């Protein structure tokens, strides 16, 4: 694993992975959307609106997974001064913000027909909104300092501290009364969900994950190039 921690080698690896993961993303979305919109039945309680779940739940899962990636990158940058840690956190954060925004938007569009309201200030929705603001704060701190290293450090501390929000989101539906339905898929026991509905959900989740990996590879390469540019310009200034 440490072989790929070298930034130059990682950039080459990322460039090699990108076309394959992009093709896989396209394939998974093609299958996932067909299953989600055409080949799956309406839910016995929620009718056709269950189809919103196939774009909503994977977005919510990814919003938390990407936060873990941001926090892990930040922690490795803070503790081990790992050069790739900051780069990965910086590359992943806007994607996580996008997934979180998507979870909120699609949730709202699902809540209106099913709960009769676009929004409620309950624990699940509010903690996901906090996650969205954590992402925005992280991105803002990255750009808040003239010295990029100071910005990265401040953002990393916020990202690591913000981890506390993840279990709150996860267990909010169990700890507090809420309109939001509890998790249908858990590690313990068989999922309380029909296979005809589980299948499109899992394929769409795989498509979102493949999309994230592809995008992360592209964004890490861009960030590595930016870091290199910054170093070159500083060297040029020092020479002249």
């Amino acid at each position, binding site marked *: 694993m440490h072989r790929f921690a070298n930034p130059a080698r990682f950039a080459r690896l990322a460039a090699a992975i990108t076309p394959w993961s992009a093709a896989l993303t396209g394939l998974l979305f093609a299958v996932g959307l067909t299953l989600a919109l055409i080949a799956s039945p309406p839910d016995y309680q929620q009718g056709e609106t269950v189809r919103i779940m196939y774009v909503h739940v994977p977005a919510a899962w990814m919003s938390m997974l990407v936060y873990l990636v941001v926090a892990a990158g930040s922690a490795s940058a803070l503790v081990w001064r790992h050069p790739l840690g900051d780069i990965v956190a910086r590359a992943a954060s806007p994607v996580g913000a996008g997934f979180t*925004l998507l979870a909120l938007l699609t949730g709202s*569009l699902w809540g209106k027909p099913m709960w009769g309201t676009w929004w409620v200030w309950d624990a699940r929705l509010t903690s996901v909104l906090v996650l969205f603001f954590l992402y925005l704060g992280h991105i803002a701190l990255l750009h808040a300092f003239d010295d990029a290293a100071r910005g990265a450090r401040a953002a990393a501390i916020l990202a690591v501290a913000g981890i506390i929000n993840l279990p709150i989101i996860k267990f909010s539906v169990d700890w507090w009364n809420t309109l939001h339905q509890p998790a249908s898929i858990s590690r313990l026991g068989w999922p309380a969900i029909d296979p005809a509905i589980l299948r499109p959900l899992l394929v769409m989740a795989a498509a979102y994950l493949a999309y994230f990996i592809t995008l992360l590879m592209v964004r890490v390469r*861009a960030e590595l190039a930016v870091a290199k*540019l910054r170093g070159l310009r500083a060297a040029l200034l020092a020479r002249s």
Partner: protein
Amino acid sequence: MDALNRFIDMGGYGGFIWAAYAAAALVLILLWLFSWRSLRRSEGELAQLDRRLPGRKGGQGRTAETARGQA
């Protein structure tokens, strides 16, 4: 035609369902476009800087070689 209309209508919830899918497509496509453009731009600037500094080429070659040597 009737089947298509029923598909678009989605049991009366078409507006919500299609809006959710459109939001997903919009967010994912915009993120992709911005990321790809920033990669193109920064790699372009890097190549430009390399051309302006012909002496740097050799230095880069050496570092690449040392990196391979360590592998």
